């Protein structure tokens, strides 16, 4: 079962605005790019060509791992606005 299949089991209310953001310059200098593999929802993907971080915020599980793992404290992390984001039917 791949990550997209896993994420497809979830209900989301998608906001038009992202609740996550990064400073791309810092990411450019970041060697490990831990956010791109530690995120359980595969939200972050580094675009080598454009030198920007693609953030699929709409898949976020709101766990907080990326914010703690990023050593340069480069992730501006908020909860999505009330009524937006993921909704767990079991938990």
């Amino acid at each position, binding site marked *: 079962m791949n990550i997209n299949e896993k994420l497809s*089991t979830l209900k989301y209310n998608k906001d038009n605005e992202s609740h996550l953001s990064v400073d791309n310059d810092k990411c450019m200098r970041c060697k*490990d790019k831990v956010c791109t593999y530690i995120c359980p929802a595969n939200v972050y993907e580094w675009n080598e060509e454009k030198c920007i971080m693609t953030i699929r915020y709409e898949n976020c599980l709101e766990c907080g791992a990326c914010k703690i793992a990023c050593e340069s404290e480069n992730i501006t992390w908020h909860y999505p606005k009330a009524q937006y984001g*993921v*909704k767990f039917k079991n*938990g």
Partner: protein
Amino acid sequence: MSNKNKTEVIVVGAGPAGVSAAITLARSGKEVLLVERGDFAGDKNVFGGTIYTEQTAEIFPEFWKTAPIERAVSSQKIFMLTDNSSVQFEYKYEGEANAYTVYRSKWDKWCVLQAQKEGAFFAPKTLVKELILDNGKVVGIDTGMEKFYSDIVIIADGVNSLLAKQLGLRNKIKDKDVSLSVKEVIKLPKEKIEDRFLINENTGAGCKILGGPLKDMMALGFMYTNKDTISLGFSAGIDDLKKHKIIPYELLEQLKNHPSILPYIKNGVTVEYSSHLIPEGGFNSIPKIYDNRVMIAGDAAMLVNNVHFEGTNLAMLSGRLAAETAIDALNRQDFSASVLSDYYKKLQNSIVMKDLETHKNTIDVLRKNIHALTSLYPEFACEFFDILTSADSIPKKVKYNNFMKKFIKHKGISSSFPLLVYVLEKCIKK
């Protein structure tokens, strides 16, 4: 509430900590507003898991009669995995269950309903953006759209606690002090679950999994039976995930497909994937948990005993003790840090701090011996059974000797069981 936007106590977060704070306040006739960012309490929350009977019943007497519980745990199992084999221990018992499996979405919702029945005011769909400060003292909450004021705020906003951070009571969490967990809820016919876990209609199993795909990390797998689903997942220290460059959902697949785990979930359908953090830093990571007009409870205060898999119970107890302190402060109309420091004293005299202090250094010891614990022990256990049960042409004496030589070669083991190693060494020398 007298004034529309002013109440005696605001509790932020309707998890186990917040709800027990709110219900305790309501029961003693205090005005309490419980705010929660979810559409209802529970729809943002994830755990393993089980709630514990005794401490839960202190807040919700005889909850098992009406609460949405899944199964009463009557079997506890430990799996020690190698890459392709395992040794399993099971502890089975009869009588009163000391733990129940629940779904957070249903359980948290039910708890809040009880608090509302007792007089707590509940505001779902309300995200607290920040605390309102007046001369550095907390006087209320700001949702970005509305402001609410109170004499005391109890922060119970969970492991990420952005609010404790705002107050400077918590620094950035260190990655070794927190675990990331991922989990799947896997649907199967009820009878299949009962047959596979050897449980009956209402009883259930809780399993902890060491080693195998989770080896050499501060990581633990878990498996819990619900009525017609199995919750299967693991948690692992963020520092270890980084060190080994782990992709959590891929590791979860490896765990699901391990030959000793797969038979339990075979032909099941994953109905939900989820993820959450666990504060695992223990005693040494607990921040200052009170100040003027404010207290912090539950995961927000890092009150988890990960050696014994306890979180909800400590959250509920700390929420209650914060509320009791607030009641006293309200009666005295003194909300100063010196009065609220009583909360810390109450925690120290309770099982919360006592147990966390007992395990103050346990995590460091486990961390140091993690290779032994998650790689060597499972291997040795499996090898031991293999020697015990395999009939072939190698003389037993040769097998025993090889096993023991291998066993004492490893420093991890010898430092954990010095006496045993000493005895074994003597045996071999003979």
